[in-house]
């Protein structure tokens, strides 16, 4: 009998590819600590009395510290015309910050308006930062004007609200103000101008279809059963564009026809209320804009003098509610919500916003309506229009008023649209398009160049856009 044990041990090490341990070349570049004003200018209108002045850091503060700011004045006296908080003493104020913060601020209080025809301003300059090796660059100065002036440049991060994109954000560049409205806070927008037009809320993917009937109480769920699947966004049917508002923003193309003085000409509409704002937390870089479906309504809209009369009911109801909605002077629309059954505030005054960040019902030609996140519309009803420029033709920094081509401004609210980002696909998430910028003519006729600097936050989470702009 022979017993033997054989061990065969082999060990193979295989290193594949030309893999180095990382992929970013070079060495460690320490992030320098830079302190700057968020914006180089600030202006007050006659109503404003105090404004926050933001200072931003290039990276989180490495330690507790302070920024020293000096100021000079033109026709303005501290304590008489203005004060600051923290208080300024002999042309200087000190603002503290804590380690780990990404910025700090101080308050500017306007005590007396400027006298017509006399310039009145305060100019702030960052003079020192307590942190060792800190750098002062970028917006090192801030000009505060006591009268309303168009901002020469600025930067802002509209509060779209992250991956659920909860908000519609209306931005006015010249005054650097933002107004936000929760996307599903309204359903119908009644035009306040001469025409009698009603828009639906495309930011939550609403859709409407005219029915044969003019008797709202006679319409039953059975009547609309076959129509319902088609009255929606994103059905990949070219014909479904009839159920949504004209994507260019042209009022003549609303899904609901012009409201006629003759009641018999105003049919009942089937209304798909779209979706609630999403609440899911998607994978970083993706969006979850749509939550639960909001259901259906039937509506009919009539005229009463200069007012609208809205009749509405659930599909299976045999009676309806009725509400009179008046036009709101100075604003594009009066907004109405089925949830609160009241009119609600959404947009700023007609000429107090230039662009709006919103989820949007757009069209893919040949495939019908299609929902877009991260969309930007211009205030086309007040004449704000835009077009895009590729950096390969002119760099952002080199672009001046002489480069503006008036012929390129189109009468379309989608002048910026989704052109500022790359669309995603299977396996790729949308990303910022860094080789384009935009030219925008605002509601006052000012021409700006706009460059987007973020689609996501630092962690790649969607819904945190940022842009800079400069007056040409």
């Amino acid at each position: 009998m022979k017993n033997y044990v054989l061990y065969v041990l082999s060990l193979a090490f295989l290193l594949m590819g030309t893999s180095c341990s990382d992929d970013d070349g070079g060495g460690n570049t320490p992030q320098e600590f830079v302190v700057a004003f968020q914006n180089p200018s600030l202006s007050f209108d006659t109503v404003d009395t105090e404004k926050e002045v933001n200072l931003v850091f290039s990276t989180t503060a490495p330690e507790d510290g302070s920024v020293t700011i000096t100021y000079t004045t033109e026709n303005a006296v501290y304590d008489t015309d203005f004060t600051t908080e923290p208080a300024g003493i002999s042309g200087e104020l000190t603002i503290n910050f804590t380690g780990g913060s990404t910025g700090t601020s101080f308050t500017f209080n306007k005590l007396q308006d400027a006298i017509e025809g006399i310039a009145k301003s305060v100019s702030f300059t960052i003079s020192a930062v307590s942190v060792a090796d800190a750098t002062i660059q970028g917006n090192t100065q801030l000009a505060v004007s006591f009268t309303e002036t168009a901002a020469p440049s600025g930067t802002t991060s509209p509060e779209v609200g992250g991956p659920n994109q909860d908000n519609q954000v209306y931005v006015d560049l010249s005054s650097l103000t933002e107004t936000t409205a929760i996307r599903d806070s309204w359903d119908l927008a009644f035009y306040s101008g001469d025409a009698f037009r009603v828009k639906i809320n495309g930011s939550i993917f609403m859709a409407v279809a005219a029915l044969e009937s003019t008797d709202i109480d006679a319409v039953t769920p059975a009547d609309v059963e076959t129509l319902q699947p088609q009255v929606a966004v994103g059905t990949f049917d070219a014909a479904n564009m009839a159920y949504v508002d004209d994507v260019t923003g042209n009022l003549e193309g609303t899904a609901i026809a012009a409201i006629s003085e003759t009641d018999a000409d105003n049919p009942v509409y089937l209304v798909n209320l779209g979706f609630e704002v999403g609440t899911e937390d998607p994978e970083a870089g993706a969006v979850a804009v749509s939550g639960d479906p909001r259901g259906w309504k039937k509506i009919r809209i009539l005229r009463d003098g200069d007012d609208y009369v809205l009749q509405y009911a659930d599909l299976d109801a045999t009676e309806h509610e009725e509400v009179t909605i008046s036009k709101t002077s100075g604003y594009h629309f009066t907004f109405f919500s089925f949830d609160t059954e009241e009119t609600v505030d959404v947009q700023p005054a007609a000429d107090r916003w230039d662009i709006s960040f919103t989820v949007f019902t757009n069209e893919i030609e040949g495939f019908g309506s299609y929902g877009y996140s991260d969309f930007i519309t211009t205030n086309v009803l007040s004449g704000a229009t835009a077009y895009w420029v590729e950096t390969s033709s002119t760099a952002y920094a080199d672009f001046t008023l002489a480069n503006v081509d008036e012929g390129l401004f189109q009468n379309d609210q989608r002048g910026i649209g989704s052109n500022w980002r790359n669309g995603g696909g299977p396996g790729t998430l949308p990303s910022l398009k860094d080789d384009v910028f935009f030219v925008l003519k605002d509601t006052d006729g000012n021409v700006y160049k706009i460059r987007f600097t973020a689609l996501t936050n630092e962690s790649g989470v969607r819904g945190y856009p940022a842009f800079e702009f400069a007056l040409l």
Partner: protein
Amino acid sequence: MNDGLRGYEWLPKTQYSGKGLVNYSGKNFRSFYRMEYFNERVQRYDSVVRENYNPSTQTSNPTATDAEFTSQRIFNHFNITGKFLQAITYDISASYQQQKRDVEQYNFRINTREKFDVDSQEYESRKGIYSRGTFNDFFQSEKVGLQLGYELSNIKGYSSPLAGTFSGNSIDRRLEAYDAFATAEIELGQRFSFRPGTRAMFSSQFKTQMAHSLSAKYAFDNGYQLRAVLGTSPRNPNFDELFTYFVDVNHDVRGNTNLSPERGISSFLHLKKNFFPEDMSWRLSSKISAWYLNVDDRIELTIVNPSPLAFQYNNIDVYRNWGASFTNKLVHGNLQFDLGLSFSGESKVLNSEESFNDDYLYALQVSSNIGYQIPKINTMVSFFFKYNGPEYQFILDTNQDDPSFIRSKRDGYGWMDGSIRKTFMDNKLHLTLGARNLLDITRINTSTVSSGGVHSSPNNGLLLGYGRSFFVKLLYNLNI
């Protein structure tokens, strides 16, 4: 910033593997235990960089979302063969295999080389036992033989929600399969023998299925041997086909829990002969085979998305395949030469298509291998060449209102490897120098054949390899 330079198309990876084997022989039995270990790290650096430019401070703080996958596999295999009751021979194998892939996802600040938002978790894992046993020689007869056997597997799999869209839930499944089989061999005279067999298949997932086979062998006077095999083969989908969720950046292969078992009939005809001169200075073994298969509800990995490439297992209504192959092996002194030709045609009918074209699609494969041993210097030189003719596959076309499968052609390609192996110290030390993919194949064109004028879209083709590569292998046999 996004210059396309960051990130790799073919991901860098580091692999370590180790193997161990222990043999033990006693009277009337032999056994071995084999262990294998494999470890792999794959880094994915995202090609998209977020510049995070801050216009106020005129600084950038670029970040990217990266991930690192770590895989480990341990395989234990125990086998015992022998005789009991003086007659019955047995051969029993049992194995336990464990594999696990972890993922670390993080965001990376490129300037400061700083990881943040680090999230580590188990990505997926599989554990399973498998055993197969056969028992022979129940009769002390030369004319009649009987084999009884069993095969069982019990596999538990886990897949994290990260590994796919399980609507936020992880998948934790167990699949058990137990088979019992019996085969008899009956000789009728010197020339003719036949072998009937049957198998019963029990599983935790499907109803019990039966399989039967019959093969016959006839030996001609002049050394030719003819063999015919006929079988029915129901086959349950295995764990891979049901639950696989192998999705990382290089791969997207998905199981399908809606699969049903395959039902197939197969027939084979083989004719073979060995040629050699009287002095045995050379030997040529040739074999011609022909086959026909017909499978209902065949399970196949189909491409459901061409770029990035995504596969899913699907039942294809009917699958027919016929073909013929001709293989030769020539040994002459220190030279060995293999040549194989294979020609097959297949026809598939797809579940989901309203109207289908079940024409046979033909494919040709040629493979050859040449090796020469130079005895004086203990060196073996070998080359391998294979040609895969154009192949056709189905692609899910999602550019239409109703996504549907369409046919796509993959161009033919050749593949060549070569190596030189030298042994030292009484064959204890082996040194191999080699090159893979000598023809430098990276992408193969795939195109949609417009049947009935559907759309054809340009794409970048299938990524098959990362190009020519070279390797050095050192192997030392340890006899203790």
